[in-house]
């Protein structure tokens, strides 16, 4: 039977996790959109802190979002030993990626992440463009190359823009 398509509502996902004080960094396509790549995505990828107390808060947040595994197996965050756990929530798709390719997980990404104000009181930590490029590169998937080149070009344009501003001052 075909799965019911759920409407992607990033504000609902992020606000719920924020309300439960979950520590996480937004990664993947949605993070790239926040930085300006203007690509399309219908889901959220996050790297949560895997500290015990945070996993407990994450569990509460996911309960609130009515999260279920896409593969219909039982959702057990204590056995989060797979690279990606794909979930369906009442606010669309959400993927948990404890240790994205080429990184050491939350503590690694947090160092260069920035808090971005998205409106409606939502202010998630978002992985830096450099770290997002590192993840894409580490995937070593040829189909990701255009996305990586686009991101690298964005980084370059942003640098040129900042350089222009500093010259104007």
């Amino acid at each position, binding site marked *: 039977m075909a799965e019911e398509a759920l409407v*992607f509502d990033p504000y609902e996902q992020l606000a719920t996790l924020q309300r439960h004080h979950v520590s996480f960094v937004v990664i993947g396509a949605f993070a790239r959109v*926040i930085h300006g790549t203007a690509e399309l995505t*219908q889901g959220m990828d996050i790297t949560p802190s895997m500290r015990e107390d945070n996993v407990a808060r994450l569990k509460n947040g996911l309960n609130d979002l009515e999260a279920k595994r896409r593969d219909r197996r039982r959702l057990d965050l204590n056995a989060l030993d797979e690279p990606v756990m794909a979930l369906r929530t009442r606010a669309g798709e959400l993927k948990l990626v404890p240790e994205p390719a080429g990184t*050491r997980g939350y503590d690694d990404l947090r160092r260069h992440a920035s808090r971005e104000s998205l409106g409606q009181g939502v202010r998630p930590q978002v992985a830096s463009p450099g770290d997002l490029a590192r993840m894409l*590169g580490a995937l070593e998937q040829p189909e990701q190359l255009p996305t990586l080149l686009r991101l690298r*070009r*964005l980084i370059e344009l942003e640098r040129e823009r900042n350089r222009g501003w500093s010259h104007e001052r």
Partner: protein
Amino acid sequence: MRGGELIREARTRAGLTQIELSRLTGRERSVLARWEQGVISPPVESLLACVHACGFDLPLVLVPLDESMDAELGGSLLLPPNERVRLLLKELGREPARTRR
């Protein structure tokens, strides 16, 4: 893209600390740090030496410059993050609720 960023990317992907990369390449750790921070730029030879020490290669190939996406990316950069998300949701066929004050 800065050479130092590529060194940091290669080093972290290889799971090396700056001290370990310093030992592998014979370069001072403080120099590696300044390259990675963008304070100074590494020479191409040093960039390649660091990337190789991390177990990667960096093929240097000249290709035509592609500026076709610059207008779109440049326009997106002028927007604040909440506007970029709003445009995404609009593209997906739905407008987000108005920002609460």
